[in-house]
Structures are given as structure tokens and as C-alpha cells.
């Protein structure tokens, strides 16, 4: 659904390209995870997807339409993005915040219609934030806030959701909840593309992993193929082993001590 | 309603409580507060100041008598004019850039501003007497000139009695009291004559506005109020002790003056301003335009000034 073809991104006044020749496909109904060390270009890719960062070469296609040919709001109707951090200067109620997700769909007078209300209700139910509707967003806990952000992204009503480090500040329980939710979304037909440094969780929930190394794709494919000690050691520059615990059912990376 | 193109502007920054300053073209005498509280001695011919102050200038210092100055620098439009009237104009070697009366004053070299004077330029004229404008702003210059050994005095004439007193002091300073007395007598006699001629006539209330934004008017502490009194009228703000004060149009409407006395530029601006036309006198066209060259300062032409005002307000009364 989202296809990157040889994408190259260069930041102005930078010595080398942030992303070079990255290609992969994030399909509907699957969880695709982009992983890699700091500075490997993960967040840059997200920026390129939403048009905040200019693509020097290659293209990004959504359902075979080049995103540079799409209007911004058209793109926003297809893809929802949940960025790494968000802090509101002026707190809203959760219901108002989620409703903002419908912005790309609203017409000139920006009045919400039946479809919009439906989408908002569905989004709040799927993320289980209905009980939080009348609370102010600055009164939410970290986990609640994250779910509310997902609700807004879902209310955007697209077929794809892109998340940049969605579990960055969450504890184990909330992390698992988030990944379960993402898994459910994918099974429901969404294309879920996430950037994360949580290799082990990603390995358990993703259908496809893309490992970036200094802007290039070092490995891609099913988690079992990507989670190989050799390539991971090289990319991360740290001794590690990859284990497989039958209770977990997916490969896990364990860093060693030097 | 800018009066800057006219010769007269009574410059006051009322909010910061300034003093009334006699003004000539582009005068820069906006300075700090001095609210004159002396009750009007309105130009009848009696001796000016109370005895105790007879020998002090307007900085409060004793005036150095016994000099016979031959190189006088006068940085004060009023005193420059008085010196010329006393025939001492030939002894002037320096004047301020705004000392433009009488016409002969233009021949005297210009040594700079009257407020915060250029002390170097003044010293360059090698004076043996310097007369400053007596405002607090000039105290530093006063100190510096005295340090340099130059006898320096300051005069600030806001009222008719001050004019009388300071003219006499100037006469003693330049060693020509007789001529000084002559100047004083001419002025006081004329004013007395005008007062006598209008004494029995009805006295209309008069507004004398000097600025527009904010609205500044002449108050009871100014010589203009005294002149109006002599000319058979009454300043509608005579009850205010300050020489000038900031008021609002509403207050003027409330006091409802019979006449408005204005400089030429002011008059045209007022007639067309919808805000000023709220004042009944303006709407009815009762605006008298005075001759700024005569009326703008409390100096040797005070008598003429009183006469000209009387002629405007009570035409034909003074023969």
C-alpha cells in the first residue's frame, strides 16, 4: 500500500545523505517495522512519507500514486501519522482532540457531518478511550495519552497508519497493549508502518522488518530472516546473541557485556 | 492641528508637568516642571518683586553686580530682546539659535541651543557675561561656565512681574539701569492704559489652546492670562495655577468659553476638526487669530501685546 522506491533524502548542508536507496513495501493487513540504530534514518523516512522532508531521489507511492503528485489533504486522508512526541500548548478535551483527526475530511466550513462523527466514535472505541472523552489531555497518564493519540490517527480514517516510536515512554504493560492494538489494526485491514527501536517486541508482532544502517537497508523480510546475530552485530556495533524462546515464539536479541 | 508652522507655540508637555516657555519658531524649550504659583501682579506700574529676592536670578543665585560687560552672550530669546531694547545690543557677541527678535538679533553670532547649550561654542565667543535660560536643564551648563570663571546668570520670564523685575536686574547687570527703567515704564504704562480702557466693558471668557494631542491650554500662571485680564477678558482656565495644563475637549466643552484665541494655523485646523467643533465657540466661529510675532513671548512688546489682544476682543476700545 505504501511503497518506497529508492528513496534518497539529503538534509541541507549535510555531508552525506540521511537515507540512500531505501525501498520496501508496507502492505495492507500487515505490520511493517523499520528498525535500526540511532541516526540510521528511521525518523527521516517518516518525514519523507508525510512530506515534511524533501525527497532528493526516488519516490514514495501510496496505492501506486506518487505522493508528490498528491495534494496534502488527500495524502492525509489515506495515511495517518503518529509522531514521536506531541505536547499541546493549549489543552483540549479528549473528544475535541480526537475530532481534530477529521480535519482532512472537513469541507470549507469545517463542519462535522455524520461520517465524521461515526469515524470518531469508531476510533475511540477501538482504542478504548471512550471513558476518557471529557477529560483534558494534560490530565492523562502516559499510556492513556498514547491511546488517545492513536484514536486521533484512526479517526483520520485512512488505510495506513505510520507511527514513529509509539512506545518510547511506556512501561511494559502499556507497550504490550500498544503492540496488541497495532496487531489488531493490521488484522483489521490497515497497513501499519512503525519505526521502533524495540527490536524484540517488533520481532514478535511485525510481519515484516526493515533494518536500516546509516541510511541504507541492511536487511529486510520476515523477523526470523532479519534477526540474525551477524548482521545485527554489524549494524548496532555491539556484541549480541539472538535467542529463541519457545514461550515467546519469536527471535529475541540479547546484548552481551563487553 | 499642528502649530509648528506658525511662529507661536507655547510648548508644554503637560503630562510631565512642564513650564510654559516663550517660544519662537522651532523653539525647543520643553523642559521639566515649574508651576508658577505667584498670584498675578498684572502689569500695573508698581515695583516688581518682593525685596528679599531683588538681587537673585532665576537660578536663585545672587546676581554679580559691578561688572561692565562688553561681551555678552545671551542664550535666551527674552533677554536678548530686552538687551536690544535697552540699547545694549552692540555688546552682544553671541545669541541662541532661537533668539530672532528684534530683527537686528540675526546679526549676532549664533552659538547654539538655549536648552543644554554648547558650552564650548559659548566659551569660544570669549564672553564676560553669559545669560542662560533659567531652567533646571541648564544647571550643568551653569556650573561649567562658572568653573571656567565666566559670570553667568539665568532668567526665566513667565509673568509680567518677572519681566519687570528681570529687566531691572538686567539693567543693573549691564550698568544701564536708566534705559532698563525706560523699557519697564513703556510696557507697564501701555498695559495700564489698556486695562483702564477696557475696565468697564463686559469680560468674555477666552480659551487659549496651544497644542492638540494632547490638548494643552494656557492656565492662570501664564503672562497671557495676565494680558487677557488687562485686555478686558478672562482666561477660562484662570483658576488653574499652572502656566499651562493638559485638559480634554470635554472639559473645554463643559467650561464653554465665549471666545477662542488661536494662532493662524491652529484656527484653520480647529474650524475643520469635527472634534473641536464640539466646542460651541468654535462651531459659532468665535475664533480670534492673534499676531504670533507680538503675543508669543513676555518681553519688551508686552504692552503692544496687551493692546493687540484688546483690539481683537474689544475693537475700538483702546484709542
Amino acid at each position, binding site marked *: 500500500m505504501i511503497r518506497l522506491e529508492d528513496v534518497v533524502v539529503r538534509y541541507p548542508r549535510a555531508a552525506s545523505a540521511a537515507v540512500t536507496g531505501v525501498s520496501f513495501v508496507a502492505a495492507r493487513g500487515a505490520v511493517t517495522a523499520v528498525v535500526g540504530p540511532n541516526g540510521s534514518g528511521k525518523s527521516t523516512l517518516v518525514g519523507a512519507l*508525510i*512530506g*515534511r522532508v524533501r525527497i532528493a531521489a526516488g519516490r514514495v507511492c501510496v496505492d501506486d500514486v506518487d505522493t508528490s503528485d498528491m*495534494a*496534502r*489533504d*488527500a*495524502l*492525509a486522508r489515506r495515511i*495517518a*501519522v*503518529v*509522531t514521536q512526541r*506531541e*505536547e*499541546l*500548548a*493549549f489543552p*483540549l*478535551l479528549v473528544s*475535541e482532540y480526537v475530532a*481534530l*483527526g477529521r*480535519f*482532512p475530511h*472537513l469541507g470549507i466550513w*469545517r463542519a462535522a457531518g455524520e461520517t465524521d462523527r461515526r469515524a470518531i466514535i469508531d476510533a475511540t472505541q477501538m482504542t478504548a478511550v471512550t471513558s476518557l472523552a471529557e477529560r483534558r489531555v494534560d490530565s492523562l497518564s502516559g499510556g492513556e495519552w498514547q491511546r488517545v493519540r492513536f484514536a486521533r490517527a484512526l479517526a483520520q480514517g485512512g488505510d495506513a497508519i505510520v507511527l514513529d516510536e509509539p512506545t518510547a515512554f511506556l512501561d511494559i504493560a502499556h507497550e504490550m497493549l500498544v503492540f496488541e492494538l497495532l496487531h489488531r489494526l493490521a488484522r483489521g485491514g490497515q497497513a501499519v508502518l512503525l519505526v521502533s527501536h524495540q527490536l524484540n517486541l517488533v520481532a514478535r508482532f511485525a510481519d515484516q522488518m526493515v533494518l536500516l544502517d546509516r541510511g541504507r537497508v541492511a536487511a529486510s523480510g520476515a523477523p526470523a530472516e532479519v534477526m540474525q546475530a551477524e548482521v545485527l552485530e554489524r549494524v548496532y556495533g555491539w556484541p549480541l546473541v539472538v535467542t529463541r524462546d519457545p514461550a515467546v515464539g519469536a527471535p529475541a536479541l540479547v546484548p552481551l557485556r563487553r | *492641528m*499642528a502649530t*509648528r*508652522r506658525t511662529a507661536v*507655540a507655547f*510648548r508644554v*508637555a*503637560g*503630562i510631565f508637568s512642564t513650564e510654559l516657555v516663550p517660544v519662537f519658531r*522651532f*523653539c*525647543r*524649550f*520643553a523642559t521639566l516642571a515649574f508651576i508658577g504659583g505667584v498670584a498675578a501682579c498684572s502689569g500695573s506700574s508698581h515695583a516688581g518683586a518682593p525685596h528679599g529676592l531683588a538681587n537673585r536670578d532665576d537660578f536663585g543665585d545672587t546676581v554679580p553686580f559691578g561688572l561692565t560687560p562688553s561681551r555678552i552672550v545671551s542664550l535666551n530669546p527674552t533677554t536678548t530682546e530686552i538687551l536690544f531694547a535697552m540699547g545694549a545690543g552692540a555688546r552682544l557677541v553671541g545669541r541662541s539659535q532661537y533668539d530672532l527678535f528684534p530683527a537686528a538679533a540675526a546679526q549676532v553670532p549664533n552659538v547654539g541651543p538655549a536648552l543644554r547649550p554648547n558650552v564650548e561654542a559659548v566659551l569660544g565667543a570669549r564672553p564676560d557675561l553669559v545669560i542662560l535660560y533659567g531652567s533646571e536643564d541648564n544647571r550643568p551648563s551653569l556650573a561649567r561656565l562658572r568653573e571656567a570663571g565666566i559670570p553667568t546668570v539665568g532668567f526665566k520670564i513667565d509673568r509680567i512681574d518677572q519681566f519687570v523685575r528681570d529687566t531691572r536686574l538686567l539693567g543693573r547687570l549691564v550698568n544701564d539701569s536708566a534705559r532698563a527703567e525706560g523699557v519697564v515704564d513703556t510696557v507697564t504704562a501701555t498695559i495700564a492704559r489698556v486695562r483702564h480702557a477696557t475696565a468697564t466693558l463686559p469680560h468674555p471668557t477666552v480659551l487659549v489652546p496651544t*497644542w*492638540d*494631542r*494632547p490638548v494643552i491650554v494656557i492656565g492662570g500662571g501664564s503672562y497671557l492670562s495676565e494680558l487677557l485680564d488687562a485686555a478686558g477678558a478672562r482666561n477660562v482656565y484662570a483658576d488653574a495655577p499652572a502656566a499651562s*495644563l*493638559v*485638559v*480634554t*475637549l*470635554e*472639559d473645554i*466643552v*463643559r467650561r*464653554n468659553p465665549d471666545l477662542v484665541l488661536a494662532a493662524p494655523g491652529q484656527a484653520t485646523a480647529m474650524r475643520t476638526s*469635527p*472634534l473641536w*467643533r*464640539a466646542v*460651541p465657540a468654535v462651531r459659532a466661529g468665535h475664533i480670534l487669530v492673534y499676531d504670533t510675532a507680538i503675543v508669543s513671548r513676555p518681553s519688551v512688546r508686552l504692552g503692544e501685546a496687551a493692546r493687540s489682544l484688546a483690539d481683537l476682543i474689544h475693537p475700538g476700545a483702546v484709542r
Partner: protein
Amino acid sequence: MSPLRWCALMLALFVAALLAIGIGTINIPPSALFDALRGSGSGLTETVVRTLRVPRVVLAMLVGAGLGMSGAALQGTMRNPLAEPYLLGVSGGAAVGAVVATMLGLGAVLLPVAAFVGALVAVAAAFSVAHVAGGRGDARVLLMAGVVVGAFANAAIMVVLANAESNTIRDALWWMMGSVADATWPQIGIMGLYLLVGGGALVALGPRVDVLALGEEAAAGLGLDVDAAMRWIFVIASLVAAATVAAAGLVGFVGLVVPHIVRAGGARRHREVLVGSALVGATLVVVSDLLARMLRPPAELPVGAVTALIGVPFFLTKLRRLA
């Protein structure tokens, strides 16, 4: 915000306006007031009310509304509760225009035009500086460019005033302190036009401000052309602010304080905040003008001084809440 609060806001404005028209050097009792407004009052009262009071109260309302809306729009767009209408050098540029006009003796009619032109030049300069610095849409770069332009404008004013005549200085100072005392109907008409068009545009752009308030990345993710939207909002808000400066000089703190009051009252979506800020801003300036007239009779304080005085306790309460 609940309908009840909206009614309260409108009522407050109405009452403030009536009080401001009725109270002054001459106090006009309510009965005479209504007669005068309808045109059937006694001579003096009617003159004072119709020529002197009503114009200034109307101008005060328009100026307050403009400043309130401009401040609300800028605070939301820049996600900064301390943003205010004079941000992009509007006040500095307008002051330079006014001071230069005063010095050249351009007269009362051209001075507002000069102030407006000065404000526009300053805004354009701020955009240029930001562009050269490489971050056109980045709010922080624009903010700093505005500070630079404002500092330059202050320097220019000092240069002009340093050797100016006392008249020029006084005129300039009086203008810079803000006043609605010289309100005339043509001025009011122009201000009204700017408020209608500019304010209307801001309200229409309200949802975009909501989205911008989420942050630039989130806004872009929702399909908004962030650079263009910010630029539009800056320009329109600055235009409205420039119009208020041209009409009434520098009236500070209104644009800063009013949006906080409105948000404290429960308005969250920016369409509400904008309209609420218009109402509260109008009320604030009307009341300030009334106080300006009553605090030191028979002189008037400049209305900018009164609004500044109001700003101080506001900031104190905000500081306390922070600490």
C-alpha cells in the same frame, strides 16, 4: 463555552460601552444618555455624546477586538501563550512610520497611513530576515526575526528623536502611548473594514489554528500546508494589529492578556477563542479608556498606559500559578 457565558460577555461589552459613553468630565445620567443617542437630547449633552464620546467608544471597541483576535490567532499558531499582536515588529515599524511622519509634519490625516505603512514594512522585513536565515515557516525563526526588526525600529526611532524638536518628541511620545481620543468616523470606518475582513478571515482560519496548535509535525500529518497557513495567519493577524496601531497608537497587553481570559472562561477551539477574544478585547479597551479619562481629571491618561497597568497584575497571577 456555554451560551450563558457568551451572553455574559456580550452583556459586559454592552454595559461597558454605555458606562463609557455616559461617564466622563461631564457625567450624563441614563435618561439623558438615551435621548442624546437617539438625537433628541439637549445641546451640550448631545454634542458631547455624539461628537466626543460615541466615536471614541466605538473605536475603542474595534481596536480592542482587533488586538484580541490578533493575539489569539498568534498564540495558537505559535503555540506560545506569550505571543502577542506586535510580535513581528508591527509596533516598532508603525512607531517608525509615525515618528517620521511627525517629523515631516505630515499632519493628522497622513500619520495613520504612515504608521500602517511602517508596520507593513516591518512585517515584510521580518519575513525576509527569516527567509534569509533559512526557516520561513519555522515559528521560532520568525519570532526572532521579529525581535530583530523591532530592535532595529527602536534604534531608528532613537536616531530620529535624538535631535528632534520638542514638538516632534511630544507628538511621537503621545502617539506611542496610545489614545482613542482623536476618533473620527472615517478612521472608525477604516478600522471597522479591517476588522471585518481580517477578523472574519481569522475566524474562518480558526480550525487551521487548532491544527497548528498541535505542532508542526502533527499539523503536517493532518494534511495542512503548515508553511502557507502560518504565513497567512501571521500576515492577517499583523495587518489587523497594524490597523489598530494606525487608528489608536500602541495599545499594549490587550492582545496578550485577552486570549488567556477567554481560555480561562472555557473556550478551547480557536473559533470560539477568536470570537471571545474580540468581545473581551473590546470590553477591555473600552473600560481602559474610561479609566484613562477618569483617573486624572481634567487630563487624560493615554489608554496604552492603563492597559499596561492592567497587564502587571495579570502577569503576577500567572507567575503565581506557575510557581
